[in-house]
């Protein structure tokens, strides 16, 4: 790359690989992605680790320890590939900063030091966190909510690709963000690489949809796809994470890391391009209104697809904000019944719990093995009849603001050991604080965001 002039290098395709699709994904995906990027002459590595609630959980960790609150598996994700990335100028762009991008940056400095690597240039993107008292007051008013601000755990705006792009242009080895829109992790590098104008809506749409295809990791490369006997996927135990080849005209291809399992074809591609999309003409991000109504996906070669026909329209006027707050306790308890009249015994056990505490809080009853996740909370599907089953697990779940009342579910299911139907076994119970989310949009001016390069702080 260094031998080319900047305009030449901007005409080269950009390769962006994504090595996780959520916090909790496999942590060994990056190695094959990075090796593939090296063989292609470089690129950018994404880790997407922030689901809607992950950030709230990270805020709770940060409150306990100001040095925490970033992706807990950061070292497992970055450690094995940091040397290769720094040696080969593969820039890392990730939202693994979660609630504490500064602390995540310090952890990466420490990783580099532990491995005797050069000190990386690390930029953090800030501005998404809206938990200052003034900001919270504004948000709660906007939401029309009268919840006590003390119950708010996290409040974050989804910010876009601009800061990521600028930090990369200034030579960041690693860009650490908190809440940004997932596709911006890919669009940012594309803006930096090609010099696309941020009001070139067509290009913004293309880069965004490339990011959309990558942001769930293997969901485009054979993960979350297989139905044995119909949609088989080879080597699911070593599925390759995806890489996009983005071209200057905005078209792009998706393939997977070399020497891995998995599958990329026009079917895995079509499942992912529509994933979590509502109106295909209006896929909203902070950067653009992307439009896939004319998109096509064609198989270009083995495990490689080409996506064309993406359009883009002006970005939404406002930014989306999520506010997460404490809202009581979720109690769940289970017990199993098997064999002769198992379903009837499990159903009787559920009815028994209902009779005893159903007046205290709304209960959901599942008969796992007969009807569970297809069912609705009100039990309407279950009331239409249950399939026969000889191995059924009763699950009772409920939420209450008062911990003592939620706990009654645990005690009532446990007591079925003695006081319930015959042959119940394997009780497990869990009681967890519950977080709720409120969403709204706010003017962009209310979210002053930026980026800065971080200095290493030695302890």
């Amino acid at each position, binding site marked *: 790359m260094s031998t080319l002039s900047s305009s030449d290098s901007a005409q080269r395709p950009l390769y962006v690989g994504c090595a996780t699709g959520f916090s909790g994904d496999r942590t060994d995906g990056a190695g094959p992605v990075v090796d593939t990027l090296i063989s292609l002459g470089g690129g950018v590595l994404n880790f997407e680790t922030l689901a*809607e*609630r992950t950030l709230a959980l990270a805020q709770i960790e940060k409150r306990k320890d100001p040095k925490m609150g970033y992706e807990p598996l950061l070292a497992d994700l970055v450690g094995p590939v940091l040397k290769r990335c720094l040696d080969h100028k593969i820039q890392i762009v990730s939202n693994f900063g979660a609630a504490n991008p500064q602390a995540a940056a310090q952890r990466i400095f420490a990783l580099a030091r532990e491995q005797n690597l050069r000190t990386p240039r690390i930029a953090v993107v800030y501005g998404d966190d809206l938990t200052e008292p003034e900001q919270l007051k504004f948000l709660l008013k906007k939401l029309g909510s009268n919840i006590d601000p003390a119950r708010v755990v996290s409040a974050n705006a989804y910010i876009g690709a601009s800061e990521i792009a600028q930090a990369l242009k200034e030579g960041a080895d690693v860009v650490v963000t908190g809440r940004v829109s997932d596709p911006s992790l890919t669009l940012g590098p594309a803006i930096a690489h090609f010099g696309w104008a941020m009001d070139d809506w067509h290009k913004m749409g293309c880069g965004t949809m490339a990011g959309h295809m990558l942001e769930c990791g293997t969901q485009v490369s054979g993960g*979350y*796809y297989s*139905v044995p*006997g*119909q*949609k*088989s996927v080879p080597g699911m135990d070593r599925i390759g994470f995806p890489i996009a080849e983005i071209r200057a005209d905005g078209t792009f291809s998706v393939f997977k890391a070399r020497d891995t399992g998995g*599958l990329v*074809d*026009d*079917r895995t591609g*079509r*499942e*992912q*391009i*529509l*994933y*979590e*999309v*509502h*109106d*295909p003409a209006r896929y909203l991000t902070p950067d653009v209104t992307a439009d*896939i*109504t*004319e*998109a*096509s*996906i064609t*198989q270009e*070669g*083995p*495990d490689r697809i080409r996506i064309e*026909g993406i359009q883009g329209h002006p970005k939404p006027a406002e930014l989306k904000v999520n506010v997460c707050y404490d*809202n009581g306790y*979720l109690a769940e308890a289970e017990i199993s019944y098997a064999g002769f009249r198992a379903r009837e015994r499990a159903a009787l056990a559920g009815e028994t719990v209902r009779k005893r505490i159903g007046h205290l809080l*709304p*209960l*959901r009853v*599942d008969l*796992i093995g007969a009807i*569970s*996740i*297809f*069912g*609705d*909370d*009100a039990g*309407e*599907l279950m009331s*239409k009849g249950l399939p026969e089953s000889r191995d059924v697990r009763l*699950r009772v*779940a*409920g*939420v209450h603001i008062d911990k003592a009342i939620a706990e009654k579910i645990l005690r009532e299911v446990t007591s079925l050991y003695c006081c319930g139907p015959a042959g119940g076994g394997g009780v497990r119970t869990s009681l967890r604080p*519950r977080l*709720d*989310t409120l*969403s709204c949009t706010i003017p962009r001016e209310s979210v002053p965001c930026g980026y800065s390069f971080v200095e290493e702080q030695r302890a």
Partner: protein
Amino acid sequence: MNATSPSTTQLPLYLLAHGRAGDKGNTSNISVIAWDQACFDVLVAQATEEKVAEWFGYRHPNKVTRYVLPKLKAMNFVLEGILDGGVNDALNLDTHGKGLSFWMMDMPIEVSQDLAQTLTIKEYAQSV
């Protein structure tokens, strides 16, 4: 459901298409992606907003919107208000409703006998 005429038969949707469910708040979107053009044509005619709303009726959708994407031989169904409040509020084990794509896959579709004879559970290989 209309009475089945002798020239047609009812088959589950999974013999004509595959799909995936996603969630945003209390709304689920479920893609229905046809195995081929013949299946797509049948699905566009049969898997209407009304029929899908009826199939998911026990979850009382506020609104069902169908988006047809001919270039992808796919449809995207957006079912509002079917997740019992969604990831925050539902007591369902599957708060996201991720499994609901497979409820869609069981929806009965009326298919001509000729087409039905070509539809079985089989391995669909990469088209290269």
